[in-house]
């Protein structure tokens, strides 16, 4: 049998020259979700109800019923999620071409700036500076904003204050650049949203959501372990659940990374 790329991949996975990196937070009731003004319906938290545990409720088995939002924990945003994407074809998780669920990923490291500035912004200047070092962002690739925010827990993660949450994100110009100049596939962050915590104060409000989904692009949120990825060269695996008319779903996000890149 002749060697194919896939059989090479299988061999590399077997001998760990290609590693699988888990970029997902554990779904757990204490994990923060986005908070909206109280008059609006809120994002459901993750909840588990044990319905049997090898006991009178079911003698030989254990299982749970789970409740959650499409947007709880590490999750995928489809274009249908935002008003700007409402009329696009194939805009829900069940109709997106699955080819989009595997692909190259670029990681822009903003961790140093985010460590000292909770409202750190990803700007076109920072993107161009990254490209100086690592080459132009290829078309149809994922771009992830690494902030190491995933290492924060509890109140620090959401970082909610009287004037709203404070966490890093892209400026409207940065998102427009990524979409219109680089035609990325999708954008991902380590925070609860693809937008900055103070994103409602941009014009338009929540520009990442607005522009990404308006252009039929995808979002990923609450990612973790981005510090384990190379700036480029990894392959991202991010397949949302096939929910009828779904606007997103929690999912297992993983990356394939070549050994010597780590």
């Amino acid at each position: 049998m002749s060697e194919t790329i896939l059989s090479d991949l299988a061999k590399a996975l077997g001998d760990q020259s290609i590693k699988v990196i888990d970029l997902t937070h554990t779904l757990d009731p204490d994990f923060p979700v986005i908070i909206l003004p109280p008059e609006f319906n809120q994002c459901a938290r993750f909840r588990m109800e044990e319905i049997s545990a090898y006991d009178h409720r079911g003698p030989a088995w254990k299982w749970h019923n789970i409740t959650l939002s499409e947007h709880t924990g590490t999750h995928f945003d489809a274009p249908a999620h935002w008003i700007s994407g409402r009329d696009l074809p194939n805009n829900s998780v069940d109709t997106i071409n699955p080819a989009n669920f595997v692909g190259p990923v670029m990681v822009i490291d903003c961790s140093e700036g985010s460590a000292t500035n909770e409202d750190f912004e990803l700007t076109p200047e920072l993107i161009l500076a990254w490209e100086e070092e690592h080459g132009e962002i290829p078309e149809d690739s994922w771009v992830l904003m690494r902030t190491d925010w995933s290492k924060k827990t509890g109140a620090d993660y959401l970082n909610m204050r009287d004037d709203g949450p404070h966490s890093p994100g892209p400026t409207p110009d940065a998102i427009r650049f990524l979409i219109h100049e680089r035609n990325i596939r999708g954008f991902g962050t380590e925070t609860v949203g693809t937008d900055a915590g103070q994103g409602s104060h941009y014009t338009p409000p929540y520009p990442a959501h607005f522009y990404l989904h308006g252009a039929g692009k995808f979002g990923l949120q609450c990612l973790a372990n981005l510090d384990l990825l190379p700036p480029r060269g990894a392959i991202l695996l991010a397949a949302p659940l096939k929910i009828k008319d779904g606007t997103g779903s929690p999912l297992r996000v993983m990356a394939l990374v070549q050994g010597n890149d780590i």
Partner: protein
Amino acid sequence: MTDPLPPPPKKNPQVRTVSPTRPPEARSRTALGLSAAAAEGRFALQHCDDCGKVQYPPRDACSGCLSTELRWKDTDTKGTLLAETTIHTSTKLYFRERTPWRTGSVQLDAGPVIICHLHGDCVRNGRVDIINRLDRSGQAVLLALPSQRSPHMEDDPQLRAMTSDPKHRRILITDARNPNTPEIVKALCDAGASMIFVGLSEAWRPSPTVDALSAMDKVDMLPLDVTDTHSVQKLAGAIGGKTDILINNARFLRPGGVLARSDTSFAKEEMEVNYFGLMRLAQSFGPAMASRTADGVNASVAWVNILSVHALSSQPEFGCFSASNAAARSLSQSLRAEFRASGLRVMNLYCGPTEDEWYQPLPPPKVTPQAVARTLVTGLQNGLEETYCGDVAKDVFERFRDNPLILERETTLAGDGA
């Protein structure tokens, strides 16, 4: 002279916990009228509509004129102690474990002679004041108090057995985020509580009450989210054996009736917190609390639910919220029955609209956190099952008791159009 009740020593971990026992529960149906009054802390007897004679023991026809028109009415509580005895042996385990137990014969100013429990400070042939309270079988009993207040009166063991007194007890308040929590904590501390656990949900979200509570004495804040079964189980595993009184003030509230809302989302949250939250708490904390009702000075004693009075009859402007409270109220009735054998008292505290953000557009009178706290503590001290805080709640309840269908109609008028 009542000896002040000293705080209990630490529980000896080598000694078996005493099983709960109860005074006799059997009562005729007519006598349950006295228990219904005791549930609200009222002293009511039957008065004959035709000749006015006041009846006791409860009966089905007037002992003066044979009329069957007997009506329960609030009655003068004053009387004179005619005779007393101190019981040293009893064939009923509950009393056997608690002798010497003092009882007496009192001639009420209203007429009848009653056999009653006797507070230790009552003086032979002296004037007394009768209170009607629920004993640990959940049935009404009459207790004579001295007509003058005496020091440490509430520490009399026979009286304390009929209350859910927070003094020397450890209390869990389930929701730190409720605006009424700091006032409830303060009132409980003033009433002698030894320790107050406060449940805090979603520590990743800030809240002004949390900061106020962190600064308060005797408060221990612990994670608790009543919508998360695991969280409830985890806290019960930690403090379930030390929870003497549980006060569930967790509340999710949004405006709107059925049609005013476009989906079931807020209603689900209301049910999740107001109904299922209660259920989770009961399933996790209930059994341990029920087993500890004879566990000494700080035995477990009460479960408090803070509900909207519109649990009785819907307030359409908050129709879905009312429904979730109706569900909680029904569940609390089941819980009360399930706790009956243990003697654990379920107290429902009903409020009208409260003085906080979601009732902001409603006109006064509204219930302040201080008022809730006061009613709650008084209710516990009197061992009540049903208590109403504020004018609106009292008013709604009176109308409900008078005729629930009239109440429903008068609160659901649509207004005259063109």
